[in-house]
């Protein structure tokens, strides 16, 4: 680079800047080919320059053209780009065709740069607003991604309102470190923690010691984000792409861009959906008779009495059989001038659960504004305030018979549990809690108030003939307070002192979380005469994270008070996290005539979470894509019109969990004296981030003028220095210690085919099929084989073992047998099939998702066997010989015979994730009815998980007792059953 020249150009441009903007005005209109409506917000650029304009609300634009002939490049996201050659000033009227292949969109390539998808060397998945929420409104953002792109295993932890979803990109990336992707929204690092509320485990005793436990299944906080605000999501699935996020990138990065305003007339959009949800797969009842009740419990007489009184009751239906009402209201406003545009989104979601007194309520307000100070200085601000509240009920594992799920396993139809006229509930004759009483009186609420804001400043420092220099600064903050309120009133059966209770528990858990991030970049573009294009970027980043969780749990409550001070005993615990990272990033991209596109980059990161806080860890990346079709090897009439082989390699890291550098005493008290007690986990002051290196190979191809497009990707990612919470000899006084000790490998294939199968004026059909699989292997383990994520060998658990699949499930198969492999949580493959039919004003879309294989550890049935209530107790499907009934077999030949085989089950499913049918009222009719006051009226029906096909012997194969992180997903202990949703929609623009 010749910087003296550049400097001269800079000076020249500053002095003569006003002159340069003087040219001849060209006007035009851009029309949306699909709706024949004006297309606002389309980009119009003069090819080879950076002069550009956007269309206004009426699709109109004006642009200054200095020299003729000139070529206008007109593009808009989701449409095929068109070029128009101008030899003189004239009006330009262009109709953009909807693009089936989204080839024209840009995808992220560096921290401050994007690249056209056609030139990308990585398989970056993207999900548009239409894909995300266009078919049916999703409950949560992360849940709505399932089946919509390749390479991910996305699974709900339970059906509880308010979410709780595990997202794993390209296999398991960490065993004890974070394995959930990083979420970035408009440049802001978003916190996605799950914070367990205090008080639940004090009652359930799921994990010993009264600590908050992961078995309460808290919501992960990405659920706060309103899917309706989202314009586009890009997913960096592995280190080859996510190296730009350095030591936070290894589990992948999900980059979300929210909607922006469009200049022109202010558009007010309104949409309203109503609907309901309903349990997918209730298990039903055992075929009770007086004889069976007598033989099982000696309660034949009670059965007969209840039968004669008409008080036999299906308690599963009583608890899980509700239809929860759903309402989503969304109002958005978009508009602005040439200089300033804004987008305002206001949405309110209310959803009741399938269990009474559970539900989810969310209000989100968004204001995004963009302002152009001058042609060269642009500021974009995004702000979002969210207020959400989830009533989650009381589910999953317990050791006290108190969760609704466990209580139901002991509840027989003749048990009378209904309250009397004064609201007094009878004690459960066969269990320590009455599930109807628990449901009606206990509270488990998570309420969030969250504010997310970000700003991006873009400054064109100078623009020249063939080079320009841009400065990009970003800042963002994500702040929330989460209040977990847990109340178990003293009236509850298990709270009464005569039943061994503690006379009521109330708990408040307050979490304050603040993330802040800053970055500044310089981006330089330089183009040589023969279309060799260099993009150089360099910059620094700084991220700060802090979290403070204070839980107060009190017992022995005064009267019916619920304040934590209105009690005899209080327990307090606090957890704090504080981390600051600093990094730099440098990247050079070279594009040779859109034929060869190469990129080299490196990120350096240091963090207060490392042993040496000022040691830099380097994460390099390199990639190359070749657009063979641009070389002219084959003619324009070839059936293959696009073929791009690509290769990319990158490295990224995962931080050790906060605090793993230290061995810290716990505190406890004994008879009023405070004591310090050795912790379970031994820290390690030399722990380092684990490092993932990913090699990705593949090609993108287009056939028959892009009617058919194909994407094929193979990847191999190796995670070294694995962060393991390795077992240590328990006689040390610790049970685990943090070590970097092992290597795992994920290999996989992702294939996506999109077909614009049919296209005419009246009828269009687009279809997409994708197929993907992943296999993992523990290639090296420097600590002894260890188990995690289950309840022991006689019930099945995960085992980390060198040379074996990382997700293998092992267990014993009889007394004194060695453990053997009984299954694997990794699916054999996944496949999704989505279709969109447009016939005149009707649109029908649906998405099928097939997960083949992958096993769960299902303990729900075993618990109901012990209660004698399993619906399939008297069937003969579990015993391989078919001789012993299921209930007896699971108990006698299963757990008591130390045989875990009956509990490891295939969790395959085929489900109709989404289906939607919409009708757009013809614009002529709308015009006639409303005289222009209303436009774009759309009505429709949609549904979520309406068809679910699986053999799995419980409510839903998508389930996790231990929440979303790490390996231990897929263990089931009496969860909140999942539901399907039926919705009706109406939307219009004003």
């Amino acid at each position: 680079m010749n910087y003296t020249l550049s400097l001269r150009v800079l000076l020249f441009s500053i002095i003569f800047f006003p002159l340069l903007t003087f040219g001849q005005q060209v006007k035009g209109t851009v029309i949306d080919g699909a709706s024949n409506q004006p297309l606002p917000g389309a980009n119009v650029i003069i090819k080879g320059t950076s002069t550009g304009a956007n269309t206004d609300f009426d699709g109109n634009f004006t642009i200054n053209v200095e020299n003729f002939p000139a070529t206008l490049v007109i593009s808009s996201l989701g449409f095929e780009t068109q070029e128009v050659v101008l030899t003189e000033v004239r009006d330009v009227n262009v109709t953009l065709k909807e693009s089936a292949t989204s080839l024209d969109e840009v995808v992220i390539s560096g921290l401050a740069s994007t690249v056209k998808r056609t030139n990308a060397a990585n398989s970056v998945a993207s999900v548009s607003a239409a894909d995300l929420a266009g078919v049916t409104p999703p409950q949560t953002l992360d849940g709505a991604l399932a089946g919509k792109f390749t390479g991910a295993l996305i699974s709900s932890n339970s059906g509880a309102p308010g979410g709780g979803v595990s997202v794993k990109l390209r296999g398991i990336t960490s065993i004890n470190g974070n394995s959930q992707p990083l979420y970035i929204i408009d440049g802001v690092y978003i916190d996605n923690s799950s914070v367990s509320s205090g008080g639940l485990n004090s009652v359930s005793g799921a994990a010993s010691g009264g600590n908050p436990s992961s078995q309460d299944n808290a919501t992960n906080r990405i659920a706060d984000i309103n899917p309706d605000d989202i314009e586009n999501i890009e997913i960096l699935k592995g280190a080859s792409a996510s190296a730009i996020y350095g030591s936070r990138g290894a589990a992948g990065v999900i980059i979300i861009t929210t909607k922006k305003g469009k200049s022109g007339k202010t558009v007010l959009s309104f949409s309203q959906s109503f609907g309901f949800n309903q349990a997918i797969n209730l298990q039903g009842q055992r075929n009770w008779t007086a004889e069976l009740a007598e033989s099982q419990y000696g309660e034949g007489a009670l059965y007969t009495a209840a039968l004669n009184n008409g008080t036999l009751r299906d308690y599963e239906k009583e608890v899980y059989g509700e239809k929860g009402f759903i309402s989503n209201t969304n109002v958005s406003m978009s508009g602005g001038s040439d200089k300033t545009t804004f987008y305002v989104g206001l949405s309110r979601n209310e959803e009741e659960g399938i269990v009474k007194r559970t539900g989810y309520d969310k209000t989100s307000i968004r204001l995004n504004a963009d302002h152009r100070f001058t042609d060269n200085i642009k500021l974009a601000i995004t702000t979002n305030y969210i207020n959400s509240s989830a009533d989650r009920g009381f589910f999953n594992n317990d050791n006290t018979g108190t969760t609704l799920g466990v209580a139901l396993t002991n509840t027989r139809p003749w048990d009378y549990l209904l309250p009397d006229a004064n609201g007094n509930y009878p004690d459960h004759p066969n269990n320590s809690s009455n599930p109807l009483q628990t449901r009606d009186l206990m509270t488990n609420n998570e309420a969030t108030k969250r504010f997310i804001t970000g700003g991006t400043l873009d400054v064109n420092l100078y623009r020249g003939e063939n080079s320009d220099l841009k400065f990009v600064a970003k800042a963002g903050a994500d702040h929330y307070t989460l209040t977990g309120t847990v109340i178990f009133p003293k009236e509850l059966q298990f709270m009464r002192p005569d039943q061994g209770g503690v006379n009521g528990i109330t708990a408040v858990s307050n979490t304050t979380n603040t993330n802040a991030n800053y970055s500044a970049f310089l981006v330089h573009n330089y183009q040589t005469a023969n279309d060799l294009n260099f993009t150089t970027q360099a910059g620094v980043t700084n991220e700060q994270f802090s979290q403070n969780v204070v839980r107060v749990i009190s017992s022995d409550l005064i009267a019916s008070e619920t304040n934590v001070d209105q009690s005899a005993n209080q327990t307090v615990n606090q957890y704090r996290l504080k981390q600051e990272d600093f990094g730099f990033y440098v990247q050079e991209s070279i594009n040779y005539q859109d034929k060869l596109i190469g990129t080299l980059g490196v990120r350096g990161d240091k963090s207060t979470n490392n042993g040496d806080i000022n040691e830099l860890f380097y994460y390099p990346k390199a990639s190359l894509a070749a657009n063979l079709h641009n070389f002219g090897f084959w003619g324009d009439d070839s059936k293959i019109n696009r073929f791009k082989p690509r290769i990319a390699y990158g490295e990224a890291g995962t931080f050790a969990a906060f605090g793993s550098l230290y061995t810290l005493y716990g505190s406890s008290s004994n008879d009023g004296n405070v004591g310090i007690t050795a912790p379970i986990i031994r820290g390690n002051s030399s722990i380092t981030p684990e490092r993932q290196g990913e090699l990705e190979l593949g090609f993108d191809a287009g056939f028959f003028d892009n009617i058919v497009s194909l994407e094929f990707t193979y990847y191999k990612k190796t995670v070294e220095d694995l962060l393991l919470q390795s077992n240590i000899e328990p006689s040390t006084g610790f049970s685990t210690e943090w070590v970097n000790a092992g290597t795992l490998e994920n290999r996989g294939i992702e294939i996506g085919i999109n077909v614009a199968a049919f296209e005419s004026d009246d009828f269009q059909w687009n279809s997409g099929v994708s197929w993907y699989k992943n296999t993992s292997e523990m290639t090296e383990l420097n600590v002894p084989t260890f188990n995690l994520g289950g309840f022991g060998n006689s019930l099945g658990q995960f085992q980390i073992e060198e040379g074996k699949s990382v997700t293998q499930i092992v267990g014993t198969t009889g007394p004194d047998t060695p453990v053997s492999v009984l299954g694997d949580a990794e699916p054999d493959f996944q496949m999704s099939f989505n279709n969109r039919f447009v016939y005149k004003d009707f649109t029908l879309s649906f998405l099928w998702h097939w997960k083949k294989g992958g096993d769960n550890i299902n303990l729900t049935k075993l618990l109901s066997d012990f209660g004698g209530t399993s619906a399939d107790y008297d069937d003969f499907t579990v015993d391989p010989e078919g001789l012993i009934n299921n209930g007896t077999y699971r108990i006698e030949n299963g757990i008591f015979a130390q045989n875990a085989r009956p509990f490891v089950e295939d969790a395959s499913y085929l489900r109709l994730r989404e289906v939607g049918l919409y009708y757009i009222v013809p614009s002529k009719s709308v015009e006639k009815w409303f005289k222009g006051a209303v436009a774009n009226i759309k009505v429709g029906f949609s549904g979520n998980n309406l068809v679910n096909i699986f053999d799995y012997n419980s409510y839903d194969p998508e389930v996790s007792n231990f929440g979303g992180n790490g390996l231990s997903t897929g263990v089931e202990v009496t969860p909140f059953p999942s539901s399907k949703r039926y919705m009706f929609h109406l939307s219009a623009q004003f």
Partner: protein
Amino acid sequence: MKISRKFYIIILTISIVMFTSCELEGGESLNGASTTSISDDLSRGELPQAISGVLSDMRGRLNTQIDVQSILGREYYYFTSSDPRFEGDVVTGNLDNNTFYTTAPWGSRYAAIKDVNLALTGLENTTSDFSEEEIASARGLLNTLKAHELLMVANNQYTNGIRVDTSDPDNLGPFVGYDEALTTIIDLLSSASIDIAFAGDLELPDLFPLSSGFDDLRKTEPVTDELLPITAADLLEFNKALAARVELYRGNYSNVLTLLNDSFMDLTGNLGKGVYHTFSLSGSDFANPLFLALNQESNVRVAHSSFIDDALPLDSRVGKVVLRESPVEASGLVGEYDVWIYQSNVDNLPIIRNEELVLLYAEANILINPAESVVAINIVRNAANLDNYTGALTPAALENEILFQRRYSLFGEGHRWVDMRRFGRLNELPNDRAGDSVPEAVPVPANENQ
């Protein structure tokens, strides 16, 4: 262009700030005291906390330990709807080496031992102005507690062995068999007794508060009858009591008698006198984990039917169980009586008490002085509302009688299984179902990599 210039200044400022802020500071642990803060230098203020920590950790998973020992000794069954392995694995005797009933008691006892080891290292490295008596009393107490915890592990593991040297996590000592473990434990108790004796009449509350579970050791002012602060000499009686138990296990009967003499044994006193774990609901304290209300359904401890069947008429110790409103059944096991040793969730749980000491005295005297043995037996019998012993004075008869009294006196306190094993009589314990059996020892946890 004016706006642009302002922006150049802003850019310049941002760049400078970003580049100069690249040195990181901080990196704190935040959420607790580092263990090295104790082991590197234990201060006067930290000593009470370290000792309370040990006492607190000694209660960890005691329920699992005592439940397993009581089920193996066929004293009671524990049925819980949420974990069937108490009626499965533990009763059938198919104990897995990687399941909580094996690993939790082991890990919890060694966690308390870790607390002791850290505090002992801290005492060695301390720079505080402790007197030699103060250090000796703290060290003596810590080693006594450590010996107790090692004994708890050894009783479970028996011939499978335990580790006795665990102070360096990176270099653990070898596994030793039961006999060698008992030798180490008695040596530890005896060196602790020398330390405690050295401290003499040192009043401990000034140095570290002990829980009210030690109150029975306190003496009263002879004149005013006022309860005096606990002293090192009082602690010595606890140390000797534990040592007597260990020596009895080792068969050194004359040592047992000497030790009992120096212990808090009181042949005429309250049999409940002893040292206890305490519980409360306040703050981060624990509730008594062995308490369950009567007539529960999904979570019950029910006496083995033989406890009622074999009881002598009028034995008041049968009051440790209460007839249920309706029997409870689980997987073919039936219970008609709820265990009712602890009647609230803050009841104390014994570490060692006079009733056991009296029975130790009886047992140690079987060969040495059978008549004295019967005196002790009668103390226990009379306390339970029973007439004097009228059986033979042969060792075999006395052994039977003492085992019988221990069974009822120490019901549900983790002794029965160990006692029957001591006399090679595990095969006499009842098995209610075809596949049930009583194992001799709990396996060594898989993670010990033995």
